[in-house]
């Protein structure tokens, strides 16, 4: 018997141009809506008591899928059918308040997760014991460390008798020993017939918990089947484009319509060595690999940077402003931006990389904070720029 049935589900997010990060679009802030298909034509079913893993990189649609299963948002096309009550480990501890005690926060969490008040009260001891916070429950949450907060949030979430449990990348709670405890608890829930959907990019977690796995890439189902087989395919695909792919999604935000896709971003120093660190005043080359899935007559490539410490924009360079046409794009390609010298002060700078159509109407692919560049030296810098200079006494 199927507990979850997902039929032909697509999910479109629509950004008004003003609602998206406009890093590269300062010249033109006019612009229509940007469509982003987070999921495209996804279908699958999960039987009662089964555990399905969902793997994929950041921005592959995992979280959107879980949100749809949780009923937090509706599909744009297709349908989602759920036969029992859904509980979710989608976010941990968001509703907690620092001024309230651990106990009050746990109570609120348990009620929000679906328990009646009296029942929630009864389970407080159990929750405190699981979180190993018995001695701290009376104290305000602001005195808790991040680890303690997460432990408490996790303990609350798994002590509410879930029937269908959605878990989104939240198993990295606490130290190894506590993580192990979380896993055993989840395995206990599995044994008692709870249907579980786990989204993660950690293959080891997925292998351990899931018999069947779904692989999402850019919103599409690449593969579904036995975990071992899917995981092998996934790992294989990862290693094929691994060197270029790795930095691309490290903590950044990505969106775009996908006709042209950025497949890799690399930085090179003046000796053509790949790097993420330069010294002030040295040249830097930004290399962008891309693939045009559809033929595109021309496009704008852009790179911008801002300082991590205060968000000050340092530069925003694109082929549009430079009057450069890159010509027809089709299939894979590579473009390089040579910065002859970069007179930035020491610190971390975050690079955004984007490909747009020539009218700026559409974003093909955009990686916000795709890469962190470290400029060495200068611990106490407050400014961004350190122009070449000398002093002379007159």
């Amino acid at each position: 018997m199927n507990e979850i049935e997902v039929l032909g589900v697509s999910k479109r997010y629509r950004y008004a141009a003003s609602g998206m990060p406009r890093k590269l679009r300062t010249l033109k802030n006019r612009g229509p809506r940007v469509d982003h298909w987070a999921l495209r034509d996804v279908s699958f079913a999960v039987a009662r008591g089964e555990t399905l893993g969902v793997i994929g990189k950041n921005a592959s649609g995992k979280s959107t899928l879980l949100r749809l299963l949780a009923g937090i948002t509706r599909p744009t096309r297709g349908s989602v059918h759920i036969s029992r009550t859904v509980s979710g480990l989608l976010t941990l501890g968001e509703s907690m308040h620092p001024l309230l005690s651990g106990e009050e926060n746990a109570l609120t969490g348990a009620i929000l997760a679906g328990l009646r008040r009296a029942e929630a009260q009864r389970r407080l001891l159990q929750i405190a014991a699981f979180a190993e916070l018995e001695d701290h429950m009376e104290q305000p949450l602001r005195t808790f460390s991040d680890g303690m907060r997460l432990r408490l949030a996790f303990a609350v979430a798994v002590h509410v008798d879930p029937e269908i449990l959605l878990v989104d990348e939240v198993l990295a709670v606490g130290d190894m020993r506590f993580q192990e405890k979380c896993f055993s608890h989840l395995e206990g829930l599995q044994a008692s017939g709870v249907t579980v959907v786990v989204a993660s990019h950690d293959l080891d977690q997925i292998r351990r918990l899931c018999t069947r796995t779904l692989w999402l890439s850019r919103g599409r189902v690449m593969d579904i089947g036995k975990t071992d087989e899917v995981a092998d395919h996934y790992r294989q695909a990862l290693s094929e484009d691994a060197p270029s792919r790795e930095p691309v999604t490290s903590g950044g935000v990505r969106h775009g319509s996908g006709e042209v896709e950025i497949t890799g971003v690399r930085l090179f120093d003046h000796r053509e060595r790949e790097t993420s660190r330069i010294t002030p005043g040295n040249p830097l080359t930004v290399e962008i690999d891309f693939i045009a899935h559809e033929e595109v007559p021309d496009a704008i490539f852009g790179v911008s940077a801002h300082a991590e410490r205060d968000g000050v924009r340092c530069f925003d360079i694109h082929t549009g402003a430079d009057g450069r046409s890159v010509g027809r794009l089709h299939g894979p390609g590579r473009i390089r931006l040579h910065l002859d010298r970069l007179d930035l002060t020491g610190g971390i700078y975050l690079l955004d990389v984007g490909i747009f159509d020539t009218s700026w109407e559409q974003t093909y692919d955009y990686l916000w904070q795709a890469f962190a560049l470290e400029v060495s030296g200068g611990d106490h810098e407050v400014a961004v720029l350190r122009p070449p200079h000398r002093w002379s006494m007159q």
Partner: protein
Amino acid sequence: MTFLERTTMSVTYEAGDFSTSRASNYRYSWDLVTHLVGREFRLRYRRTIFGWLWAMGYPLARLLVLAFLFTRILPLGIENYAVFAFTGIIAWSWFATGIASATSSVIDRRDLLIRPGVPRSAVPIVSVLTDGLDYAAALPVLAVFLLLGDGIPLTSLLLPVILVVQLLFTLGFGLALCAANVYLRDVRLLVDVVMLLGFYLTPVFYDAQSVPDRYRLVLDLNPMAHLLSAYRDILIAGHAPATVPFLVLTTVGMAILAVGYLIYRWASPSFVDEL
């Protein structure tokens, strides 16, 4: 109307489908809403020395200003002005702050929206009810004012009825404006402006009788004008409000709540996408 239901059992979410078959669990919703209201109220005055006594501070300060203005500088000749104005101030405050906080509630409490199974309508409802507790906290002050004057009339027992009717209006407007505010953040700012105007266009500190006939329409269309006169009927004059107009008012209140809820329910499935 399925108000405040928790999602249980079988659900199907479809594209473009807003109504879902859900089994309701009102007891759970009651627990949820009362717990959150209590929590919000406690948090509001957490770590203050005077605690919830602060709930009286704002209406008392307003009363002080108005009483000085309209008994000393521009006397309006209203008997027992403190009771008269205070009744108006606290009822109006609940209406204005309730609608304003409901309007921004969903944006402030995104964390509640991304909880599977938590009824979405709970969010603005909790806001309105929390502000209602501020009203309740000011009632003892009103009681003192009444005792200092002509005493508390027996008709004061009807107070809960009028509170419920005011709740209908506040929630109805609050739900609709909350939905609108998710898409157009101007709404919250507009609400503030309208509430500022509303304070003067509602007989909070002046007598409705003294409004010239040609401006009567403004008061007739203002539900708070009717509610204030009902409050003053039972608390000061000591008689029940006229039955037929009050029933009409109640019906209009229920209609507004129904429309507000339908708008909210229609818009709420895509809230999370917009936040």
